């Protein structure tokens, strides 16, 4: 069952960037791609629990700020050392200029 939660207005995330979103004791990373699509993943790197929202978005990649581990934020796939475990991804929808993620 989906559980849509309001994150922010679309213009609060720059293109090719990411923000941190905390909800109900959990932390997420919400991305805006260079081609203006929105995505969401778990907020912490699977390697050492660092907040990905402080990292660098390059095309469809998020790079962790601590050890430069890379994931595809579109699929959650870990792209090689030092990250080995994929990120969990979450559905995103845009309604009336607002970003929602499904955290169920």
């Amino acid at each position: 069952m989906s559980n849509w939660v309001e994150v922010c207005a679309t213009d609060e995330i720059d293109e090719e960037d990411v923000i941190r979103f905390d909800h109900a004791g959990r932390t997420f990373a919400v991305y805006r791609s260079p081609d203006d699509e929105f995505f969401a993943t778990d907020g912490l790197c699977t390697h050492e629990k660092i907040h990905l929202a402080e990292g660098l978005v390059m095309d469809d990649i998020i790079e962790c700020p601590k050890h430069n581990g890379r994931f595809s934020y579109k699929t959650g796939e870990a792209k090689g050392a030092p990250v080995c475990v994929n990120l969990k991804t979450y559905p995103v929808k845009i309604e009336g200029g607002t970003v929602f993620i499904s955290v169920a």
Partner: protein
Amino acid sequence: MTRVATKRDYSLLGRDAQAAVQSGLSAAEWYHTDIPRKQMKELMKREDGPAIRDTILWLGSMVVCGALAIYFWGSWWCVPFLLVYGVMYGSASDSRWHECGHGTAFKTRWMNDAVYEIACFMIMRNPVTWRWSHTRHHTDTVIVGRDPEIAVMRPPDLLRLVLNFFGILDVFHATIDMVRNAAGVISAEEKTFIPEQEQPRAIRIARIWLAIYVATIALAVTISSILPLMLIGLPRLYGAWHHVMTGLLQHGGLADNVIDHRLNSRSVYMNPFSRFVYWNMNYHVEHHMFPMVPYHALPQLHEMIKHDLPAPNKSIIEGYREMIPAFLRQLRNEDHFLKRELPPTAKPYREELHAEPIAAE
């Protein structure tokens, strides 16, 4: 009252390793200077241009100097060319291994990976093992028992330090590690930081390297000349001095078991040649605080946050003038370290986060 110095256990499987995990020193949240997101994004931005230019200069100078060393081989004229070749092989490879390991040197991934593999071979660091050990170094910088890359343990082994200016002990240990890995053995300590799925690759690379060294030695024997080894292998000895000279300054004589890079890392202003060889790692506090900033943006980062950092040493010599007396004092008292003073504009050290008071004696 006389205080008894604390005996440190640097084993990754030992008492201090367990204590660091239990106390929360390991994998802790480190201090970093606040930088607005927009500026941080600009600093983190990747480019190919600077690293392509520097790699052409680096490998190009090796080709030219190597060719001239071969041409003048047998006369003293080969010496200056070998000295330059050696520093590029045995020292510049250290910084290239490091920066490309972070994946920040180039924007294009395969360029990072290619230069990383070449540099790892020259510096004799298995690209798998050292990628993971360096990851740990950034998680637990100079945390005793957790950081596998502490260059100067307490009390300092000064003979070891001097020998390593010529790569002697490093190459000895690197050779043993390579042969052991080539035989299919990953040590218990390596297993603490290399994931299981990565271990076969470490073994495969060790076998390739061993084959290259055997072929080089065979060529030297066949032509009855040491020249092949002067170009492959031995430059790791006679060209190591520069990377050891700059590398010791990174953390030498400073605090251990703290979670603020301003206390355990050192930035040093250096001449342009050393900065080229070292790829700007003289801005070492800045690098540790923000490891995703590429080497070519570190001077800009330094200007942005220097108000919050201890003043850098003004030169390599000044750094050594501060560090060597600290090493000598640590021979008598392992707890001694240099506490770097912060400027009035800086946020203070977070004394409450450190197990021991961070005032130097």
